[in-house]
Every structure is written in structure tokens, then in C-alpha cells.
């Protein structure tokens, strides 16, 4: 009953800062996985320069030699400095790859160029009317905000239908640490008592970020430079039937430092008709309209 041969699997952009070698090794392995879409590029901090635009484009060409996955270039989320806007403009002008817009600045640049784009999870689109505005600007695929519930996503798509606007593809963040917030402040540098302007790229020492715990040692968040992520790994595999019902065309798996091959294999088995697990580790509260950190029990039975 869960079989949906059309469900695609995507690999989101790496949200952490890995060095060049680790990045290349990671994608060499990912190129061999059953993925339909691979997102590349830096979305968190413009100071992370081990991989520049040309490096990402080169990597994309390498991946394309062994994989048939669609390759997409993801843009920066918090675009503040004039230099960051110039980089974003170059990314939008890359001339090869589809772009994921994570800021309305990227939406505007793509729309001016009359090029289609993916609307990333950092765009605040929560209803059909807002979605229609972005579709009119060229959005062909929508990744809902991570705090959106399955019900909200379903209602939003039905509202879009009622406006007689064709649906974009829908890609749901189904696995990984949830990107929750962006700041001007670098919390990794703060944790190491360094000024942001002399950060020494210390986030590269933490391939899965730094855990932030409560004083009772409950894991709450993950510090990743200027980004704050969930401590728990979100995992919607047990909710697979509902993902299908809500209208998902793609499931986004967000890279972790280790074990992505197994994660992809588990999702791949279910999309090919395998039974979803009754429960998995990690959180899925947002999907069920609850606090994001919670795990809705036995969600797979619903």
C-alpha cells in the first residue's frame, strides 16, 4: 500500500563545514547511491570558502559522469553583505545548474532572469496564496519550511489547487538535523570565545556541529556556525504513507557526517514498496503539528 514508484529521493546541501577532501569523498560515495536529486553549495556561511562556486560546478560535472541525479546549486540563506549578494548573483548566473533559492533575494534574481528555481526551506511560504506568488515568479519545486505540519502542507496545496495554479513539485525535509534559525552571530565562534571576524573556521572542527544541552543535559539544539539546528535528527520514514498522501514528490535527506548510505538505503527500500518501520529514532513532532522536538509514538500505525 506504500508503493509509490514515483517518489524521488534527494540529498540536501551539506549544512556543516567539511574540508575539501571530506566533501569530495562524501560526494564520490553519494554519486553511487539511488538518489534522484543532489543539492550542492554553501547555504549557511559565506566565510566557508574551501569550496567556491567553480569548485561546486566542477564537482557537479564529476558527479554527472557517474550519476543520473539532477544536480542543483543551493544559494546562501542569510544574505547581508554586498559581497554576499554579488556571490549570489554569480551563482544565479552559473548557466548550468538549476538553483535553490533560500532567500527572497535569490527569488528576485532568478525571476529577473526568467529562470525556474527551487524554493528552499528557508523561504516563508505557508499558504496557497503565497505559493501562487512564488510559482508566478518561477518556482518549480517547493521545499516547505521545516516547521510546517503534514496537514498544513496538504491544505496549502489544496488552496493552491483552488486558485487554479498548477502545483510545483513538493519536496519534504524527511531526514536530518533540522535547520531552525539563522543569526548574524556565529555561535560556534562564541562557544570557542573567538570573535566572528577571527573565527579560524573553527566550525570545521565539528563535522556534525556542537551539541547544546540544557543544564539537565537534555540535548536541545546543535550549533553550526550562524545556524542553529535541532539536536534530534528528524526522521519521517515511519510516516511514509502520510508523506505520500500529503502530496510529496520528493523526500529530502539532509547530509550527516557518517552513515548516509544506510539512511538512503532505508528510504529507498520503503519507496520501492517495503513496509515502513513502525517507529524510528529521532523526532517527527513538526510533521504531526506538535513541538518539533517530540516523537509522535507509533506514527506508522496512523
Amino acid at each position: 500500500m506504500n508503493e509509490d514508484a514515483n517518489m524521488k529521493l534527494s540529498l540536501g546541501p551539506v549544512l556543516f563545514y567539511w574540508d575539501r577532501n571530506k566533501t569530495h569523498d562524501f560526494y564520490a560515495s553519494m554519486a553511487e547511491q539511488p538518489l534522484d536529486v543532489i543539492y550542492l553549495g554553501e547555504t549557511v556561511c559565506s566565510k566557508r570558502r574551501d569550496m567556491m562556486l567553480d569548485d561546486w560546478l566542477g564537482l557537479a560535472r564529476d558527479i554527472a559522469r557517474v550519476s543520473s541525479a539532477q544536480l542543483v546549486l543551493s544559494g546562501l540563506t542569510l544574505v547581508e553583505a554586498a559581497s554576499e549578494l554579488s556571490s549570489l548573483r554569480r551563482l544565479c548566473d552559473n548557466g548550468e545548474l538549476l538553483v535553490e533559492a533560500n532567500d527572497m533575494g535569490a527569488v528576485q534574481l532568478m525571476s529577473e532572469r526568467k529562470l525556474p528555481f527551487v524554493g528552499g526551506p528557508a523561504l516563508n511560504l505557508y499558504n496557497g496564496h503565497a505559493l501562487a506568488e512564488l510559482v508566478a515568479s518561477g518556482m518549480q519545486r517547493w521545499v516547505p519550511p521545516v516547521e510546517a505540519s503534514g496537514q498544513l502542507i496538504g491544505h496549502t496545496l489544496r488552496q493552491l489547487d483552488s486558485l487554479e495554479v498548477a502545483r510545483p513539485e513538493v519536496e519534504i525535509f524527511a531526514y536530518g538535523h533540522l535547520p531552525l534559525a539563522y543569526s548574524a552571530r556565529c555561535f560556534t565562534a562564541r562557544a570557542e570565545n573567538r570573535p566572528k571576524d577571527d573565527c579560524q573556521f573553527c566550525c570545521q572542527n565539528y563535522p556534525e556541529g556542537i551539541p547544546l544541552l540544557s543544564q539537565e543535559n537534555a540535548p536541545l539544539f546543535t550549533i553550526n556556525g550562524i545556524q542553529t539546528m535541532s539536536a534530534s535528527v528528524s526522521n519521517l520514514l515511519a510516516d511514509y504513507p502520510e508523506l505520500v498522501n500529503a502530496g510529496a514528490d520528493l523526500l529530502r535527506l539532509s547530509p550527516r557526517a557518517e552513515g548516509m548510505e544506510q539512511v538512503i538505503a532505508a528510504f529507498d527500500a520503503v519507496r520501492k514498496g517495503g513496509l515502513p518501520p513502525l517507529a524510528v529514532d529521532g523526532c517527527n513532532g513538526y510533521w504531526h503539528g506538535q513541538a518539533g522536538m517530540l516523537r509522535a509514538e507509533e506514527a506508522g500505525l496512523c
Partner: protein
Amino acid sequence: MHLVCPAGSLPALKAAVQQGADAIYVGFRDDTNARHFAGLNLDDKQLDKGMQLIREKGRQLYVAVNTYAQPEGWSRWQRAVDQAADLGVDALIAADPGVLGYASKRHPQLKLHLSVQGSATNAAALGFYQQRYGISRAVLPRVLSLKQVKQVAASSPVPIEVFAFGSLCIMAEGRCHLSSYLTGESPNLCGVCSPAKAVRWSDEPEGLTSRLNNVLIDRYAEGESAGYPTLCKGRFMVNGKRFHALEEPTSLNTLDLIPELAAIGVTAMKIEGRQRSPAYVEQVTRVWRAALDSYLKAPQRYAVQPAWRQVLDGLSEGSQTTLGAYHRAWQ
């Protein structure tokens, strides 16, 4: 530079008018605005009265319909926009592209300001809202350094409003789901952050403890002053150390920056705090009116008076203030 002041009630609105606010911003009594707190905001009658006073005194009224609409509630956001237009407000402050689209099509005469919740931090993003919806002003998020404000203002297609004083969001506004991650309610969708109903205080052997949906946010030793458990301002454990890992309880205060913001060409300065008391609005407005007037009268001789600072410190979280992201070292 215009002084834009908050009002969560009619008495606060009157206080702001009396103390010399150029514009007062308010919200309706529902989740269409980002200060959807119990007992806060103005009903229809109070809005009519407030509007009357504002017109008599030649000031401006802005209405914030600045949360993101959810599909089932869409008619509420539509109604809020219609109501603001019927009231004849001087501007509607909004963030949702759907709401902005509706307002610009249905009420082309209604002036639109992009809310800080719209998270527009660069000229291209501002261009999107200006070209599609004809916004006539934008409020910048509190994440930009002064140099970046200058760059954005210089290339912005619309006049810029910035935050002058008040509680400090350390995350880019509109780009923070921390509250919903812990409590299920977020600024974007519910107009609240760290909602009061999720807060629990308890006297525990280890000290006075604040929790948000059962998660420990902070714990205070005897004699330490305790603050509202806004989750980004708690003390947490990182790499084995207990500290304010994200931000300390502090408020933004930019009295020192008035000359620089004026030179940049900032159009309006905004005071945060629709959830605060009429007394807060009265005191903050008085200080800022005096500061802006003093600057206008003699820009070269402008200096922050200690008395102004004293009043504002007393109204700040943790009784301390910061220049926030405007000052690069804060970042």
C-alpha cells in the same frame, strides 16, 4: 527620521501620541500579528478612538498584519487587511507574500511596509517586494552591521526603517523556529515566541528554575535576578561549559548611532514592545523624542545624555543594553 512607537492598548497609544511619536503601530486582537498575547492589542472601538486621536494630532497609524497566514485561517488575514484599509491607516505592515499580494491588488491605495518578519536583508530581496507589491518602506532585521545597513540602504529601492530600541531578537526575524521546536508555537505561524502558557517556574533544591514546555531554560542562584525564559536567552551547556550560549538577557539600544543612521539616510526608527506597558511606551517615546529632537537641532553637537541612558537601561531586559549586530564585535 520618523519615530515609530508600539501600542498594545489604547492607553499606550495615547502615551505614544502625547510623548511625540510620529507614527504608532498596532495589531488586531488575533493571530494576524506578531504580538498575539492574551489581553493585548486593540478592539474595533479602541481602534476608532485611537485613529481619531492620531488624526487630531497629525500623526500616523500603522497596523501590523505580519504573521504568516495558514490556509484554514486565510479569511482572517484577508479580513484584517480589509479592516486596516477601511480604517484608513497610513500603512499596513506585512510579511506574507500572499497577504501582500492580496493587499496590493484589493486595496491599491493602501501603503505597504515590509515587516521585519519578511527577513529582507539585501537589496535584491527588497526589490522583490517593491516590484511585486509596491511596498513603500521596509523594516530591516536586526542582523545587519552598521556597514551592512549602509550598503543595503544605498542600494535599496525603498526607504528603510530600522530598530532603535527594545528586546533583541538575535536570530534573523522570520527565520527562527526555535520556539516551535520546543513548544509547537512560533512567531511566524502563531505570533508568539516562548509562549507564556508553556512557561513554568519552580523552586527547586538547585535554585529558582524556569522551564519552557518542561525544558530547563535557566536556573538562578540566590540573589541572581531572573528574567522571562525567552529560549535564546537561557543558560545552556556547550562543550561542558554553562553559559548564555546564544545571547544574554539584554535589549537593543541605538541612541549612540542616531548620527550615523541619519547619515545613512534611514527614514524611520522603530521602538519594539507592543507587549509592554503604557508606562514603558511613555518613557521610551519621551527619551527617543528628546534624542531625535536634540540631534535635529544641532547634529554636530549631539551627545547621548546620561539621563536618557538611565531610563532606557531601567526598561531593558537584564537592565543591560547592547548595540547588537550593528556593532560588528557583537556578532
